[in-house]
């Protein structure tokens, strides 16, 4: 079988259920692929891994993929698994935040590492300074967890609909104590989990063939995972080497992930050009320090997806 390595953006969890299902259920075997799934982590930058030749395909978010592309690593989106963004800002009501107008003077936890662009863009739109000056917002580099909110070290923190939000809930905070601002709703959403490969791979027909097989099997995995969530969670837990994930949390995550994968008339994983354009626009209007300076050319391609559909 052909070898192929996939680098994930984060640790083994239901966020990547589709790939684990495809591997476990033998979907990759069916198309004649031997896929190695490399788990990620907080300091693994998938783009760097692929630039160094450590993977053939990576799961990454579009803002960081485009930024990387401008840095000279020609990443190309070949599939967009998540149709919607799961990012939001979760605030405690008792901090006095009810609307974005209450942000100034408050401390907000933000994920950096490529995930800060939509946030900065949002603040830019709202006209709030983020450099700690008077009248702006106080930005913290948020760590791995939701402690800052629980400890009241921040009024708001970044959360994903499928993960951190539920951690806050699981920690004993009731939903009515919280208020959330989804990036989708604020018009600053950017595309998240997508599959990226290097441009040169698309020039090689054999490689395109392999990638098409990979996409076909992966999307089959995703559809199966969405349809059989309990089984998918069991498979994810099976693959978690740390033995730290809990079933309850992963089930909630799987439910939310299913919402993000959603329905696409052109099939699971088809990149909506309009959404991509919106992401680019959001990134380019980043105020004084935009993420990307020019419209990317050829940063996404439907070719592989089309080929997969034809298989």
């Amino acid at each position: 079988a052909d070898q192929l390595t996939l680098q994930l953006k984060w640790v083994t969890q239901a966020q990547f259920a589709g790939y684990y299902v495809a591997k476990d259920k033998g979907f990759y075997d069916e198309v004649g692929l031997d896929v190695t799934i490399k788990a990620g982590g907080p300091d693994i930058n998938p783009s760097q891994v692929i630039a160094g030749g450590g993977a053939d395909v990576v799961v990454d978010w579009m803002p960081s993929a485009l930024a990387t592309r401008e840095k000279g690593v020609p990443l190309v989106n070949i599939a967009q698994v998540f149709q919607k963004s799961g990012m939001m800002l979760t605030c405690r009501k008792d901090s006095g935040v009810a609307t974005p107008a209450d942000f100034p003077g408050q401390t907000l936890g933000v994920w950096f590492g490529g995930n800060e662009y939509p946030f900065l863009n949002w603040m830019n739109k709202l006209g709030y300074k983020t450099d700690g000056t008077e009248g702006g917002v106080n930005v913290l580099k948020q760590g791995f967890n939701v402690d800052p909110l629980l400890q009241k070290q921040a009024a708001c923190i970044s959360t994903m609909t499928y993960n951190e939000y539920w951690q806050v809930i699981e920690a004993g905070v009731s939903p009515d104590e919280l208020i959330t601002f989804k990036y989708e709703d604020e018009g600053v959403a950017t595309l998240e989990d997508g599959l990226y490969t290097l441009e040169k791979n698309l020039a090689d027909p054999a490689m395109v063939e392999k990638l098409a097989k990979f996409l076909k099997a992966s999307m089959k995995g995703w559809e199966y995972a969405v349809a059989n969530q309990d089984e998918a969670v069991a498979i994810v837990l099976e693959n978690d080497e740390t033995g730290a994930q809990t079933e309850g949390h992963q089930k909630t995550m799987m439910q939310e992930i299913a919402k993000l994968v959603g329905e696409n008339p052109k099939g699971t994983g088809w990149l909506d050009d309009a959404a991509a354009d919106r992401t680019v626009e959001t990134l380019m209007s980043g105020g004084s320090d935009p993420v990307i300076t020019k419209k990317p050319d050829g940063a996404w391609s439907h070719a592989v997806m089309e080929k997969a559909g034809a298989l």
Partner: protein
Amino acid sequence: MSDWMATALLVAVTLATWGVMAWLVRLDGKGLGRWLVPALFGAGLLLGWEIVCRGYGIPAVLLPAPSQIWDAFWRSLPVLMADFQQTFLKAVIAGFVLGNLLGFVTALIVDRVPFLQRGLLPLGNMVSAVPIIGVAPIMVMWFGFGWESKTAVIVFMIFFPMLVNALAGLAATDAMSRDLMRSYAAGYWQTLLKLRLPAALPFIFNALKINSTLALIGAIVAEFFGSPISGMGFRISVEVARMNVDVVWATIAVAALAGSLSYGLIALLERHLTSWHASFRATR
């Protein structure tokens, strides 16, 4: 440049650097000459690095060439300076002073009270083994996002090396020197001040040197677990993800410079205070 050309160039640079260095050492320069050799070594290293990056076409997002780092350094100088202030001038200095003091005082207490030596030392060994990355999130949780939590991490990290070395140092007196003090019925503090501390100085400096580098690493790593939006650790983690690897290396260079300078300062102090030690005379 092709691969074999790069290889040939690399070999040439290595040999040339070594040759000149060996020659310089034979000249045995004093003053400025002493610094020429390490400088040359560094220059050779950087040149080799540049050749590798360019010759083998290493992508800049993996490893930028020194020239690119140099550019990034000047480009982001104001940012780097703010980071330096946040990390080094606040967290590192406070943590270094506090941690060493705490380790030293604990060593004195443990050394004084045999009960503690047997009761606390095993636990001290245990605490020392607690990895910084386990501690850092907890410290952020307890002391907040500011420099205070970084200071706490540093204290935690450098405490043990000081404790171990100070204890070894305090035990490093020979029997006759101790007997002399006994014969004067010298009190504990007098023996400490006049015999055991001087004898322990080489060990204490050993710890100070190790700690000077540990402190910087500790602060930077702790910033990975939550920080305000400045600081050297913050810069590194953020710019790696932004693929600005040249800025990352510029920050690393600043860290290396700051660390080496503090180390040098301590080494200078050591030479001054323990010039009597055999290790400074036995090089004949």
